[in-house]
């Protein structure tokens, strides 16, 4: 994906989030992640994206 296309992806994602609305936001993003997992060439690519997305976020409070 070119930088210009990535920028369009950014804008479309923002527009889609606004269209879906706050109530279904988490469900929408999780569905999107699953569909993008299916579009990944292999599991490693998806696992790397998962790790990168988690990096820097505080872990959930302990079980």
């Amino acid at each position, binding site marked *: 994906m070119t930088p210009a296309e990535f920028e369009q992806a950014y804008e479309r994602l923002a*527009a889609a989030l*606004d269209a879906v609305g706050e109530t279904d936001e988490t469900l929408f993003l999780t569905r999107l992640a699953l569909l993008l997992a299916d579009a990944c060439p292999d599991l490693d690519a998806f696992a790397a994206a998962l790790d990168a997305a988690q*990096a820097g976020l505080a872990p959930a409070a302990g079980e």
Partner: protein
Amino acid sequence: MPRPRGQTQSLYYEYPRYVSAPAPELGGEASRHAVAIVGAGPVGLCAALTLARHGVPSVVLDAKTSVGEGSRAICIARHSVEIFQQLGVAGRFLGKALPWTDGTSYYREQPVYRLRMPHGPDERYYPMYNLQQQYIEQYLVEAAQATGLVDLRWGHALDTLRLADDTAMLEVESPQGRYHLRASYLVAADGAHSRVRHQLGLKLAGAAYEGRYVIVDVQMRSSYPTERRAFFDPVANRGATILVHKQPDDIWRIDYQLRDDEDEQEALSEREIRARVGAIVAMLGERAPWQLEWWSLYKAYTLCLDGYRHGPVLFAGDAAHLVPIFGVRGLNSGLADAADLGWKLAMQVQGRAGPHLLDSYTPERRGATLDVFAQAGRSTRFMTPPSRGERLVRDAALSLAAGHDCARRLLDPRQSQPYSYAASPLTTPDDDCSLFAGGPTPGAALANARLDDDTFLLDGLGREFTLFAFGDAAPGDADRAALATVARDAGVDLELRCLAAGTPAAARCGVAEGGVLLVRPDRHVCARWRHADVARVGAALQRALGRSPA
């Protein structure tokens, strides 16, 4: 809400007091001026100076008797300095302004993006200079006074305007009394609250953004270099943004965004401003004492007129368009308006313009405005996301920016660049663009390429049209005589500059192996060829003078 100081009191700048003189019209002189300009801000003055450069006198009206009482731009882009160079005033600016190339964007406490504007040893000017608007105006006023062609009327306010028989009929209020003034052309450079626009019943159309910024000038000693600093979600303004720029005379511009729940009145109280600025100064790690110089409230708009020409009236700068500050396009696009308008109006007044020349002002400069809206609109949405979705994506991008190029690139503030008049009716498209390896395409501004230790391409720009001929494309004696004839037929001066091919300058112009660029007075390329054909040069000149229908 009392300010600590009046609008023209300053910790560091002595505001000039210009004398308000009685208008000749008050003595019964019923003269008709070729050009009247309303507004002695940077745009009106730049228009007056451009007209004067072409030998056209103008009368400039301004309600105030000093400088810098309106907006407070601070960033002058390289392409504006090139305009100042043509007006002979660049040296004055370079002696005072602070040049810069870089910037840093922070997310929370971490630097996540480094801005590096294109710059190198082959550039004459830096990509950006910071200078307070009152200096910009003062230098332009002094240059205008020196021309002997600009009748600056301080304290003279436009009251009513009507158009009759293609003449602008102005009623002007001055300290010495009211008078009528007639002008064949009127340049409306009277800012965001343009009286001319209101008098003609015209409205700006477009979008307003929700985000609000308090913009503050602070006097503070600091050795921090001149660069753009942008802070997203910083400790001194959680959930919002801050911009910091250095100006001459130890002045710092701090723009901080108000959160949605903050009250404007309260935010603009001196006590609140001192508390906010104190926190920001502490966050910046500065320890020197600081003082408040000036503050105001800012909101972003992308608004413009449908047309920039209304009969004899031509709108320029904020009178024609309001653009967001992000990307520094307000002042810079206004100066480009004046540079475009100035030579066209001069040709028109002198009877040398074709029937379509003045009408090309709207497509060229409104086209530039719409391009600014697209670029600055994106920057504005990134700085102040207008919806929950935009905010979520922006915050996600910021949090990924440190480790991921794809997200980091989104932080580019898209600083002002000159607009290309590629689609202008004045521009002759390439016959075959494959003959050129890059370089300015027809409509684009000529690159100010280095020629040798001390000279650059734009030093050779003529007052009217210029033909830059590289290498084997330089015309022989017979062609030179024929070129002089086509220029005379077109009614303009055509300077010929012959330069070597195979040089870095030729390569930057896309004509490393030789070629010819025909350049307008405002340094935009209006046509180019691999070889100069006199008839084609003549046709392109006629077209650039508005003698071909759009």
